[in-house]
Each structure stands twice: as structure tokens, then as C-alpha cells.
């Protein structure tokens, strides 16, 4: 398991990285934390001609407020999502999701942006991003644009990022009073890819849900917003009846993949169990 040969450039700026990409042509891979790319190189599942390392670009780091939104640099490490007070306050689902991502040493190195751009349908951060309704800031040679999370994740490993473009930052909308969240997943071992996972963010006034946002993962080819379950809950209090309705509604939301280890019926069953548990245990944002 040794990687095939490739050329390497450590980019110093976003513009520099993009022009290097444009010059090199087709077989180029951007490297952030490298924790998805490097194993696939070692397994020789891909063989790029050039790797452009983005990890030392200052513009991709940093966590700051910007127009009421929290701007999280794409190169923010998973471990920062656990420890950073700004993320805890304004992007609590990232903070809640991070401990579920792989293992401590992986979290020291893996990046938030890398995870979102990689768009593994079983990973945690994409679902948290959808549930929080974040916007993804993408740089292209023509300029930057912001894409809502619901439109960002397109298919298995496929996002709105076009070849050569770079994910710059994640923008998280400002917190709302009365916000509650829940994040959980069902795994066989700590740190495994989830059999099913879910991220929930809601706002309740006098117990009545004013807003609810639910995203599930490992149930399809991308993080999946549970539209029907959300509708089943809106304007209601969270109780046994509304939870039961939301669980039932998941049947309309999900069409999980069917495989030998995890048949579709099992994933749907687990998704219902998990959503029920998360809804029953929503926690106020600290």
C-alpha cells in the first residue's frame, strides 16, 4: 500500500492554487487535511498527476463573525470544532457532531472543509451543515459565491464545487433564541461510519415548534433533509404523538440503499429509532 507517484505543490494563496490547477489540467487533487485523499492514494484507488496542498493558505483558516454569520475557515480542524467557543455558541451542531467523527488523532488533522467537500454520504459534518442551513463559500477563478447547504450536496461524493474550485469557508447563520439541537448516530463501534445518523436543530416558543430542521446521513447518496418529518412536527409540541408522526413520515423522506449488511428496511427502522430518540432529548444551546 504505497501511493503512486505524483507532483506536489504547496500553495500559498487561493489564487495561486487555482492557477496551478488550471495550468496542470485534469489530474489534479487538492489536499486539505489529507485524511480522505491519502488513504485512497495508498490504496491506489486514484493516481493524480499533481497534488496541490492548501493547508498552509492563511485565508482558509480562522473563525470569525461576519455580518451576523459565523465564518469558519475551510481548513478548521475537527478538533477545533470541539474546542472553539465561537463554534460552540453559533454552530453547536458542528461541536456536537465532531466527537462522532472517527478518532482523536484523525480529528487533530482532518478539516471541516475537507469533510464537506469530500461529501461522503456517511459522514457527520455534511448532515450538520444541512441541518444548520449553512452556506458554503466557494472560490472560482471568476470570483466567489455562496451556496446553501441544501444545494451543495448533489450526490455520492459530488458537491456544487466544480473542478478547480476551492471551498473557502462555511458560513453559519446567527443563533435564534430558544434554539435546541440534537445530534446522534448508531454505530457498531465508536468512530465507525454510522449505520444511520441525524442532526436536528429546532426553535420552540412556549413549547411550540416554530422551526425545525432535520438532516439524516448514511441513508442515501447524500445528507438528506427530512422534509416530511419536519412538516409533521412544525407548529406542534414535542410529545409522543408528534414524535410518532415524525418517525412515520420518514418513510416518505428516505429511500435508503439496500445492501447485504444493512438492508433498506433496517436503515429506515434505525432512522426512525434514532430520530425518535433525538427528538425526545433535544438540548438547549448553551
Amino acid at each position: 500500500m504505497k501511493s503512486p507517484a505524483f507532483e506536489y505543490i504547496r500553495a500559498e494563496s487561493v489564487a495561486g492554487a487555482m492557477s496551478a490547477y488550471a495550468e496542470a489540467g485534469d489530474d489534479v487533487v487538492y489536499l486539505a487535511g489529507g485524511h480522505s485523499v491519502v488513504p485512497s492514494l495508498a490504496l491506489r484507488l486514484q493516481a493524480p498527476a499533481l497534488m496541490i496542498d492548501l493547508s498552509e493558505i492563511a485565508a482558509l483558516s480562522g473563525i470569525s463573525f461576519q455580518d451576523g454569520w459565523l465564518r469558519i475557515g475551510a481548513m478548521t480542524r475537527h478538533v477545533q470544532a470541539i474546542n472553539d467557543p465561537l463554534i460552540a455558541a453559533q454552530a453547536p451542531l458542528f461541536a456536537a457532531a465532531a466527537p462522532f467523527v472517527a478518532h482523536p488523532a484523525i480529528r487533530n488533522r482532518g478539516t471541516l472543509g475537507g469533510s464537506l467537500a469530500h461529501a461522503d454520504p456517511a459522514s457527520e459534518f455534511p448532515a450538520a451543515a444541512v441541518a444548520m442551513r449553512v452556506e458554503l463559500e466557494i472560490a472560482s477563478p471568476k470570483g466567489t459565491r455562496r451556496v446553501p447547504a441544501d444545494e451543495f450536496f448533489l450526490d455520492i461524493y459530488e458537491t456544487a464545487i466544480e473542478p478547480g474550485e476551492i471551498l473557502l469557508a462555511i458560513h453559519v447563520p446567527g443563533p435564534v433564541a430558544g434554539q435546541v439541537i440534537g445530534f446522534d448516530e448508531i454505530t457498531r463501534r465508536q468512530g465507525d461510519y454510522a449505520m444511520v445518523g441525524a442532526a436536528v436543530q429546532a426553535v420552540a416558543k412556549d413549547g411550540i415548534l416554530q422551526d425545525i430542521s432535520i438532516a439524516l446521513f448514511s441513508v442515501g447518496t447524500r445528507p438528506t433533509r427530512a422534509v416530511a418529518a419536519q412538516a409533521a412536527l412544525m407548529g406542534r409540541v414535542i410529545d409522543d404523538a408528534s414524535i410518532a408522526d415524525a418517525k412515520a413520515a420518514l418513510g416518505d423522506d428516505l429511500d435508503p440503499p439496500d445492501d447485504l449488511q444493512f438492508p433498506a428496511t433496517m436503515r429506515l427502522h434505525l432512522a426512525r429509532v434514532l430520530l425518535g430518540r433525538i427528538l425526545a432529548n433535544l438540548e438547549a444551546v448553551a
Partner: protein
Amino acid sequence: MIPSKNHIGQSHRRKNALRHLAGRGRFVTDLALPRMVHAAFVRSPMAKGNIVELDVSEAAVASGVVRVFTAETLNHSCVPWTGTLDHFAGMQSGAQNMLASSEVLWVGHPVVMILAHSRAEAEDACELVMLDIEDEDAVVDGDAALVKGTPLAAEGINSNMCFQTLLETPDLDDAFARAAHVVEGKFTFGRHTAVTLEPRAIVADFDPSTGQLDVHHGTQTPYQFQDVYARHFGLSEGRVRVIAPDIGGSFGMKLHVYHEEMAAVAASLMLGRPVRFVADRLESFVSDIHARDHRVTARMALDAEGGILAMDVDDMTQIGAFSSYPRTSVAEGNQVIRLMGAPYQMPDYRGRLSVVFQNKVQTSQYRAVGHPIACAVTEALVDRAAELLDLDPFEIRRRNLLADDAYPHVSATGYQFEKLSHQASLDKLHQMMGYEALRAEQTALRKQGIYRGIGIAPFVEITNPGASFYGVGGARISAQDGAVIRLTPAGDVHCAISVTEQGQGTETIIAQIVADQLGVTPDQVKVTTGDTDNTPSGGATWACRGAGIGGETALRAGRKLQMQILTLAGEILQADQQHLALASGAVVDKTTGQERITLAEIGRIATYRPDTLPKGSDNSLTAAQHFAPTGYPFDFTNGIQASHVEVDIETGVTRLLKHWVVEDCGRIINPLLVDEQIRGGVVQGLGPAVFEECLYDDMGQMTNASLADYLVPMAGEMPDIEIAHIETPTLDTILGAKGVGEAGTAAAGAAAMNAVNDALRPLGARISQTPMTPLRILTALGHV
């Protein structure tokens, strides 16, 4: 007074652990020799097929490539190997070669070997090999393999049945006819694999100028490989040296002959330079032996009081395209059918075994060969009987376990037990786990919708095997071990011994045993293992023999040297050696304990001033000893395990809460090491019970061949394990030690399965397949 020689029985720490803690382990994977080349293999991506095109011309000229071998250019250098043994009457297997020449027989079957200056370059060149295989229908399923008209899994066999056997007592049918109750079940035990953290590794170094072959090999059985390499490559044994340095885990997986290691040796012989092969994790999954893969149908007859009358068992085990060499892939199934019901007073028995070929990686001996299967089936049926008769699991076992004064005993399957302690173990477990309180807690929690379960499983373990194990079948596998002990000129002790160290603590216990014979501390005894040039020949590490056989060898060698020292001391001191003894690094007066002469002084005189010894004195301070067990064919140990689990009945996820073991391995030499052997063994039993499985699709593709998808047990999921002991030494040896390496693995899965079923019982669900995955549990519960 003579200080007591009491290092045997003490928890000495392992000195060799200090090297690892400092990052100074020396593994084969760390070895770099001058002019060494690295091997990589092109492997079959198909389970079965014919090679229609193989073109290595581009690879041969790729950057860094030193040589490319195919079957045509490599196989002639090695006598093919065939994994059959005479005492398994009627068994068959095709002969094996290093590289596939025309037919590929499993996914991962090596076809081309590429040697390059680096592993990366060798892998680069693998991508340039043009290999076209016309695929054929693979034999994937063992039951289907036996259906008429199914193609053969390999060449050189006349059917897909490798071996069949039947054991039967005359009154079996009668026992079932008069039974008050019969319980039965069908069980499936998945394929799993060893996943040693250090993969298989070898550096073969042939020096054409001297004709010497040195093989640095991550193996548990260096002498066996010395013999294999000599015979299969036509070398004299004296010119073959196998060195097994630090080994990153073995567990039975590293004693089989593998295509890649043989190819590395062949290549070194041809190139005259060192050849290194280190399996990467992906290769490990498709080329290391796998384990288990059984389907068992079993029933148990009981009388009205729950007394076990008989068992009737049919085991089908699936072994891949060949039987492994040199032990065969039959030994596992053979032990399964012979270990059924072993802890119980069970008069009658019938066991049928079918060993079946298929197009997958070979299965073969792995830690606790056959034990977990026999134990899980037996104990599941005992629990079913208890449920039927409304007996507590402890009570039904109390009624049936062999009485502690019923020895010697011969089991219905023919095993001879010298002396075991089942009843005492059962009582000890009951008390240790706080059984009554756990049951009360279980009842209370069920009312809250929390489903916990308790499962117990008594077991026996085969240890200290004699030559009847493999030797009688014609295998050149040593059942004896050898030790050479010497007193150095400075009065230290050196012991070279054939049993080997893989971290289980062999060197430490040997030092303890030797120290007690020579009146020194274990620190003063240096132990050398794992090098065929520097230690006497022996069996090394297999089937649980390091302490029982290796320890006895060391003890006897130590006593021999003790006599030599005392004789020499008597001559030096002009004293009657009957009045002398060894203690505290010196020769002392036996009655007063007073020091007469130090060992250092004896070493000095014997080495530098032999001229001062009385005429005719023998100044030898080296003793050699070999030992093979000659009493019982094996020393059986026994014990009992308990598992406490919680099953999330909505998700099917099982949490292992706690595990208990009571174990009787005879004389305990080092309690610290014994307990950690048991703990590690338990976890190797729990892994396949809950997580580990090699998942194949219907084309014979292994679909989870990485550590991301093959679930090994990790710290977060494994329970704390409480251990207690009963000590019933074997009288076959002076030392009295039996083995303990497989005890943990033998019954952990059985206890866990019983615990899960105990948790599921109120819901009317039951699981009879391992691993007990969420899917299988949810299916049993009717949720999927």
C-alpha cells in the same frame, strides 16, 4: 536457612517489554539489509478463472524493477506442498505452488511477483502487468459445493469434500430414544481472521558464496520453517537459519506455509540477495489464513431431571481451495466434533464432520482451534435445555458437569482427562460475579425496557499436545522442545530454548523457572529464543505449549545444570555435594544456608583455572535437555466464563458490560502474565462473537477487506474482565503447568451468545449465528 526458591508463582514483569515501551522493538518489518529488494504481488481479482493472457514485459522494464517472476519462471525452484496428513484417513487436497500458473482459485491468489528497489516501485510495476482471466463459476457456498454437478473448487481433487469423519458411541440412538427431552439447533459461525497488528513479514537472505540461507521471518515456529525451506528448496538443513525476532502478534496465523513467503525465499535463492516481503493490510485480508466458517446442526438428549444423555452433531466447515500446510485445514473441524460436550458427564455421542473446499482464502488453525465452536454449540443447547426444564443455567450445569473427584475420565469423544475442576470453578464463578444480584438487577431493568442478559459457558482447553497431535500423521512438526543452559564465566545464567516469544511472556517465565532451579533471580537469567542457529530444535509456539512443555524442558535443563554445578562445587570445596545447594547466586550449605562459594567463583575457576580442579573433574557448565510429554496425549485445562450484556432491542446493538473467567491451568508460573493471556484471549473470542466477519458476496469477493470495514474489537467496546483461578497441577510433569493461551478464546463467544439470548428471551427471540450483528438481532426480533 536457604531462602525459598519462589520465583515460580510470582508476577514478574517482562524485561523485553521495556524495549517496546522505548520504541526499540526489532520486528522483521524494521529490518533493512544491504542490497535488499522489495516484493509485491499481482493477485487474482476473481475467485475462480483461467489465465488467458499474462504479459509482464512492460513491468519488467519499469523504473526500479529488479526482476519479475511468473509461475513459469519461479515455481520450478520449489517442491509443491500438499496439506494432507496420514492420520486423517481419506483426506485430499491439491498440491500448491507459489504462483498460479493457469487457474486462479481465490480472490488474492498470487500470480506475479515483482521485485524492485522499493515497495512503491514494485507496486507501480504491478499496475503495468497485463493479466486477463476468463472467469468461471466459483464455489462459494459449502453446502452448494457438495451438490452434484457443482464444479470442483481446484485441480487435483475428485470432489469438493476434503475430508469426512464420523465418531459414534454404540448407544447413541438408544439414548435419544429414551430421552425425556431433546433440544436442538442450527448454528452458523462466520469466517474471521487473525488481523495481527504486524502483518506477515519475511526477509529471505541467501548468500551464494557460502550457500547459506538466512530467513528473518515473523513466525511463531522457526524450526518448522527451517525444515520446510530445506526440504522444499533442496537445501541441507544446516545451511538454513530461521530467525524470528520480535513478532507483532501471531495467534496461530503465523505458523502456516504461505505462497508469498515461499516465493520470497525462492527469489532470494535465485537472485542471491535479500528479498523482503511485508504483507500490507489489504493483502493480509486476502492471503492470511481465515478461521472457523462452520455450519453446525446439533441436538442434545436429556433425561427428565435435565441430565445430559447424549449429543448428536453435524459440522460442516468450509476451508478454501486447499488444505493448509503443514498442519492441514482439517484439524479445526476435527477438534470441533471432539470437544462437543467435553465438560459434561455425557455418556453417548455422535459427531459427523464434513470439510469442504470452496474458492476462498484457506481457513486453518487460529487461536483456540475448534474450541469456540464446540463450546458455543454445547452451551447454547444446555441453555435451551435449562429453559425447557425451567432450570437456572447454573443449576443445570451443576447437575451435569463432571464431578471434581471423577478423574481420570474418558469423554464420549475419546478425550482423556487427568484431573479437572469444573464444579469448583462453577461455584467460584457464581460467587465472584454476584450472580443473584445480577439476576435481580436484570428483572428490575426489564421493567424499564432495558434488556440485559447473563450467559455462562464452562470449557476445556487442549494444551501440551504430544506427538500424537501431528507427528503421527507424518507432519514434521515437533512436539518436543529443547533447552541449553549454561553458567557463564561471571556466574550468570544463559538459557537458549526452542519455545518462542510473541509477547505472551515466554522469556520471562523461562527465566523464572530456571532461576528457581539455580538459586538465582530471574534478572540473572538471560533467555534466547527464536533463532534456529542459537537454540536447540523444538516445536516453539503452537497449541498452547510454551509453559507446559517449554517450561518443563527448562526446569529439567536447570536441574541438570544444578547437578553439574554442585558436583563441580563439591570437588572444588572437597565437600559432599549431598550437603550442598544453590541459593542467592551461590553454593550454600544445605542445612545452614551458609554461603560456601559463589556461582561467579565457580564460573571463574571452571573457565580460567580448570588447571586447579582435581584431576578428572568435568568443568562443563552447560546442560542440554529435550523434553516431550509422554503421559496423557494432551493436558486438558478447564474453566468457566460469564458474560453480561445489554441489548438495545430497538437498534440491535449489543453492549458488552462485563466478563468473568475462572480458569484452572495447573501450576501458575506468573499470575500477571496468565491473567493478561486470558484477557487477550477473551477479547479474541468476543470479537468474532459480536463484530468480526469476512464478508463474501456470491461471486466469492471479500467485500470488507480493510480495517475500516472489518470490525476488530476496540477499547471502547470491550468490557473489563475479572479473573479467578483454581490450581490443579498436572502430575505428568515436575512443573505441573498446563497451557492458558487459548482458554479465553475458547468460551468467551459462547458466554456472550448465551448472554444475548438471555437478554432476548422475554421477547421470544433467539440468535444462533455469529457475529451477532445488529441486523441479525433485529431480524430475530422481527424488526427487519
